[in-house]
């Protein structure tokens, strides 16, 4: 989808550094791997076949009477599509969690969501909102132009979004349900397009939906994917900073801003540095490929192709759903440490382990005062100090923990990249390393998912006496940022691909001399 639509701009951006001007070798684009064909020209990770980690909302949210049936539909749809296309199943669950919580909060956040869904649906080329909502619920009248249902994402964003503003939020539910049934019956390419579009629900709208901000107009160029991940995040952070600066006197002072927190944990810097390494490595691979010919070239291409495959076939073991009540902290650290060892480079999971511990300490801090809490009336200032933990505090802890764990994950990948490029690794191939890194990515995403479950469970307990419009956006926010966190981690993982390719080329060169 948008990845494919802007190859020229992507390329342009990437060559900005030291990339030689030669066109990439032709055979790169005719490699038959269905979704990898543009990855050689695109340092921003391709995200089509990657699977999303499982993330189900806690029962408190999911089983609300008004959402249960829809969630079930979505779940049926996703399980069916899993058969035909592995990647869809897990995304279905992310979508589902987003969906069921979002439905509960339509009053505040629905507007933003409906626009995004409409956007996703537009790029899929499925029926216009008008037809959909008529089909789902007769009461809905949307005036979005049906002409926009072409797969056109470049132009007309303004129109589409503008008209979507007028849509009633309850239609969002209907549309996404139909969306999954459309996806189910269409081809692979559409599905990958759909994945891309759905990813946008997480990536570009995190603030909007999380904060229930109806002033969506400022997020113009919603589908503009020519920017790098760190730019997207930096923009988010800057927007939050601006908001914070503008609102210092209001009660939003303590509001949790993922982007700002992520930056405070130096996540942005590590990401930027990782992007630099990735870009430079990519340029290096390209220039090496242009100097080779014949058998050498074919052999190297085959090797690189295999490495690439490890980056697209990530397996999330869906059977193994962590019990959120069990603190598997030791397991997490051990699993990571063992995996890192297999990379044969000197790096530890110490900081990640600490981030995880901090998150669990925050959860414990929340739990103790809550259980002792007797009468959680409307949280006035005084009570907040007595009971120690308000829903806002819990939300802040959750977002902080997600931001910290994500920042540390990206730091870990950055350190791995540095070590891969600047130390000689013996006894392990780049291909094996790629598989280990994929495994690490899974571990990290699972952890993010697990954290979001724990935090939302806490939120639900603490806020059991809160009004829905107070509690639900907070819970939705946590799930969204968790979904984003997993995306960032996976994107950072993709940035490692050129780095491993260079490492492979170096090792091969070393051994042949």
């Amino acid at each position, binding site marked *: 989808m948008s990845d494919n639509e802007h190859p020229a701009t992507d390329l342009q951006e990437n060559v900005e550094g030291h990339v030689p001007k030669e066109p990439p070798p032709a055979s790169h684009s005719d490699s038959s791997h269905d979704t990898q064909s543009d990855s050689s020209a695109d340092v921003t990770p391709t995200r089509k076949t990657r699977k999303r980690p499982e993330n189900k909302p806690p029962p408190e949210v999911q089983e609300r009477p008004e959402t249960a049936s829809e969630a079930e539909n979505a779940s049926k749809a996703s399980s069916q599509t899993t058969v035909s296309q592995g990647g869809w199943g897990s995304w279905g669950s992310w979508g589902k969690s987003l969906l069921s919580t979002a439905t509960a909060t339509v009053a505040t956040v629905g507007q933003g969501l409906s626009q995004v869904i409409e956007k996703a649906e537009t790029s899929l080329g499925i029926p216009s909102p008008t037809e959909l909502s008529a089909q789902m619920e007769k009461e809905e009248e949307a005036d979005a132009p049906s002409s926009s249902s072409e797969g056109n994402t470049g132009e007309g964003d303004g129109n589409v979004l503008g008209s979507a503003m007028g849509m009633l939020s309850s239609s969002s539910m209907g549309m996404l349900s139909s969306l999954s049934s459309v996806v189910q019956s269409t081809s692979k390419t559409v599905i990958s397009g759909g994945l891309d579009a759905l990813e946008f629900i997480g990536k570009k709208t995190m603030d909007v939906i999380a904060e229930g901000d109806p002033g969506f107009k400022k997020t113009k160029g919603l589908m503009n994917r020519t920017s790098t991940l760190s730019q997207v995040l930096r923009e988010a952070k800057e927007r*939050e*900073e*601006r908001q*914070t*600066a*503008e609102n*210092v*006197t209001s009660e939003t*002072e303590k509001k949790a801003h993922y982007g*700002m927190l992520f930056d*405070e944990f*130096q996540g942005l*810097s*590590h990401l*930027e*540095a990782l992007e*630099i*390494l990735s870009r*430079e490595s990519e340029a290096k691979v390209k220039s090496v490929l242009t100097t080779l010919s014949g058998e050498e070239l074919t052999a190297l291409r085959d090797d690189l192709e295999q490495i690439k495959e490890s980056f697209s076939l990530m397996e999330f073991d869906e059977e193994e759903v962590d019990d959120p009540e069990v603190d598997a902290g030791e397991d997490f650290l051990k699993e990571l440490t063992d995996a890192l060892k297999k990379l044969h480079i000197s*790096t530890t999971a110490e900081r990640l382990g600490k981030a995880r511990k901090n998150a669990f300490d925050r959860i414990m801090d929340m739990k103790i005062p809550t259980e002792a809490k007797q009468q959680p009336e409307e949280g006035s200032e005084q009570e907040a100090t007595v009971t120690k933990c308000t829903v806002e505090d819990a939300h802040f802890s959750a977002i902080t923990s997600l931001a910290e764990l994500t920042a540390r994950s990206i730091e870990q990948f*950055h*350190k791995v990249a*540095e*070590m891969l*490029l*600047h*130390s000689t690794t013996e006894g392990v191939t780049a291909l094996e390393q790629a598989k280990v890194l994929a495994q690490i990515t899974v571990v990290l995403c699972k952890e993010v998912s697990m954290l979001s479950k724990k935090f939302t469970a806490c939120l639900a307990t603490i806020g059991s006496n809160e009004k829905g419009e107070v509690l639900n956006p907070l819970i939705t926010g946590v799930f969204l940022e968790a979904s984003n966190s997993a995306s960032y981690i996976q994107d950072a993982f993709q940035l490692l691909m050129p780095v491993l390719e260079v490492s492979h080329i170096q090792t091969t060169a070393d051994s042949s001399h």
Partner: protein
Amino acid sequence: MEAIWLYQFRLIVIGDSTVGKSCLIRRFTEGRFAQVSDPTVGVDFFSRLVEIEPGKRIKLQIWDTAGQERFRSITRAYYRNSVGGLLLFDITNRRSFQNVHEWLEEARSHVQPHNIVFLLVGHKCDLEPQRQVSQQEAEKLAVAYGMRYVETSARDAINVERAFTELTRDIFELVKRGDITIQEGWEGVKSGFVPNVVHSSEEVTKSDRRCLC
């Protein structure tokens, strides 16, 4: 409130390995001295707010680079997006002082088309008995390259604040004069956000609100 700062400056800290770059930065950002520290891998990041005038805060984003030769090629990529830098040598290690010239050359060749404001730092000044580089000598070199010179000790917390603050002030003056400008696609200087409503008279007043264009 953390979000309220006038500018963000990105600083890079360079110099031979083991001169104490990370220790100096940690003292500055974390207020403590690490007795043992592992060699930096590639680059690490720290940040801190500095108040250069009452109510005027600058956020420093500090890129702590590895001194080891093997990481040199990584470090090179980071000069371009820095507005300032601390160039460290160890006053008890003559070799690290002799390499100052080389570091400057390297920085200058990779920073194009921008400029970096450097501050020369003679580190570990608590180890006076082992001194191998005299203060006059270092000052002379600094003048020759148009830099300030400061002697610091992370262990005894000598001049650490001063080193960073003076560099920040110098850059701030250049920004105010328009010699350094904020540019799209350059991370050296970023403008922060000033609140619409201010709490006290000491806070940034309306007239101080900068136009971001």
